[in-house]
């Protein structure tokens, strides 16, 4: 039988501005119809969503619950050692079958009517299926094989687990492209990650405003004043941005020439002595151990922010490594899940450095707390904006890789991928 996929009808009608990627209608951050369309076209569409780390389900029977868009999802490792994912919604009447964030189970039994599912999401038991004493029971032609939990395709890459509801999604490495895969490998290949902590930040804004922020290399030194205030700016930083051909994924990176940095710091030390005489009011860190780090990757790159459409971030800020999962929670709210990482072979000194550098990131991070509120400033700012649009022209109008980080190219890249996914 040929199955003809039925595309759900779009609820919202959006006409994209004729200027192209340099203009984004504010309605995209407000409209309930757009939000519902995104669930169909993006989160249930041909894209890969980050689910969890392999290290979070190391043993047979381990599971973790998460979300893909609005949909609750469970990730498991079955007795065959493989990772599976399925919707956390009983095929009977829709109740969640898994009520824990993580754990170990032999199967999942719905508390409502005890329909029981295997670790792969197949229906293996229905309470009173044959009735009692020959009375009652399911219809005679009821086939348990037809009533499994809705399964996701699963793919892993260097310890990251991604899932997709779509059968049309390209293989993960193809979806990401070579450059992005390389940059993920740079941080995670052949390493055994250890979760150091998990934090959730509820952002008072549409999910796309946070994703724009992640991809925005223009704002970093303007909104985040920690480094400049404490005179930790390194003007010699070399770096750039990579935007993949689809536009949806990006990497922003910068590096410090360590020899030059050391020389600069020696100079800064003598400057400091001078400046102390000139001015007592200069901000200086009392304890600089918050920034102490090592060149873990041997390439001098001290910052690499990598994003994968539609909601994944891999962050390396010195030795502070984290993954962030961006989950939409209605038009005006976003759940940002931080997972701080170390690695099994960390020395105690390196582990301590990671923990101290974590002060830079997260809900209270010296260079990230502003990102928690700035999306809300936009969300509130665009109330009543009617058919207003944002202007995204820094660095031109293209969505291509660039040696300069003073560009909004990766934001335009996001909108390129978004328009493509949404058919706008």
């Amino acid at each position, binding site marked *: 039988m040929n199955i003809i996929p039925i595309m759900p009808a779009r609820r919202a009608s959006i006409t994209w501005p004729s200027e192209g990627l340099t203009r984004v209608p504010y309605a995209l951050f407000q409209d309930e119809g757009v939000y519902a369309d995104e669930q169909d076209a993006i989160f249930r569409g041909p894209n890969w969503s980050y689910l969890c780390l392999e290290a979070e389900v190391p043993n047979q029977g381990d599971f973790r619950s998460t979300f893909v868009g609005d949909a609750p999802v469970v990730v498991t490792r079955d007795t065959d050692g493989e990772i599976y994912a399925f919707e956390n919604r009983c095929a009977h009447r829709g109740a969640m079958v898994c009520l824990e964030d993580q754990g170990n189970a032999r199967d999942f039994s719905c508390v409502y009517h005890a329909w029981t599912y295997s670790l792969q999401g197949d229906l293996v038991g229905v309470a009173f299926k044959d009735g009692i004493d020959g009375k009652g029971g399911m219809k005679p032609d009821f086939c348990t094989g037809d009533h499994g939990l809705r399964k996701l395709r699963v793919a892993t890459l260097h310890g990251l687990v991604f899932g997709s509801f779509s059968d049309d999604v390209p293989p993960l490495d193809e979806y990401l492209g070579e450059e992005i895969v390389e940059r993920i490998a740079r941080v995670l290949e052949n390493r055994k990650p250890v979760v150091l902590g998990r*934090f959730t930040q*509820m952002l008072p804004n549409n999910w796309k405003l946070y994703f724009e922020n992640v991809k925005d290399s223009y704002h970093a030194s303007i909104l985040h004043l920690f480094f400049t205030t404490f005179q930790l700016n390194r003007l010699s930083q070399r770096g750039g941005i990579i935007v993949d051909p689809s536009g949806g994924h990006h990497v922003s990176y910068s590096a410090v020439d360590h020899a030059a940095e050391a020389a600069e710091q020696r100079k800064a030390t003598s400057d400091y002595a001078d400046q102390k005489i000139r001015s007592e009011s200069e901000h200086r*860190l009392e*304890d600089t151990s918050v920034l102490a780090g090592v060149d873990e990757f041997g390439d001098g790159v001290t910052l690499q922010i990598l994003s994968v459409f539609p909601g994944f971030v891999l962050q390396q800020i010195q030795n502070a490594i984290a993954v962030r999962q961006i989950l939409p929670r209605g038009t005006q709210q976003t759940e940002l899940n931080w997972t701080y990482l170390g690695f099994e072979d960390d020395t105690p000194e390196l582990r301590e450095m990671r923990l101290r550098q974590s*002060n830079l990131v997260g809900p*209270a991070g010296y260079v990230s707390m502003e990102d928690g*509120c*700035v999306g809300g400033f936009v969300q509130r700012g665009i109330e009543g904006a009617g058919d207003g649009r944002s202007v995204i022209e820094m660095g031109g109008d293209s969505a291509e890789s660039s040696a300069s980080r003073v560009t909004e190219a990766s934001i335009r890249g996001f909108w390129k991928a978004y328009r493509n996914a949404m058919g706008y």
Partner: protein
Amino acid sequence: MAQDIYQLIARAQADYVRCIDDGDLAQWPDFFTDACVYRVTTADNYKRGLTGSMIYAASRGMLIDRIASLRGANIYERHSYRHLLGQPSVISANEREARSETSFMVARIMRDGSTSLFATGRYCDVYAVEESGVRLRERIVVCDSSCIDTLLALPL
């Protein structure tokens, strides 16, 4: 002794929250000894023994830096806290050191007047007992929820 230490801790904590809610934040580090630990984490991480923190200060200098950054560098919408503390539960005490736990609720009052329950949890503390009173050698702020609304700027 038990009675005294209870009163010393209760007094120190009353001053601590007054400093954050109504006083001069610059004096907040003075509630800690020079060598100290201050962490803000969640009950889930704490239970699992995960040491990653939203805030981690491993010295009084790092507390001073936190306040300097909040005042001079970080950008966030103006807001204040109102702490309500439970009675301290003194877990152990001797002449030099006391361990206690105290529950807290913190309301956050935003610039526009909106007031919400921002955090609940407990302080897991180690106090150094000194002639003039007690100071924190370690405070682990264990938030009950894993979720922080918008951002965490002012200390808990």
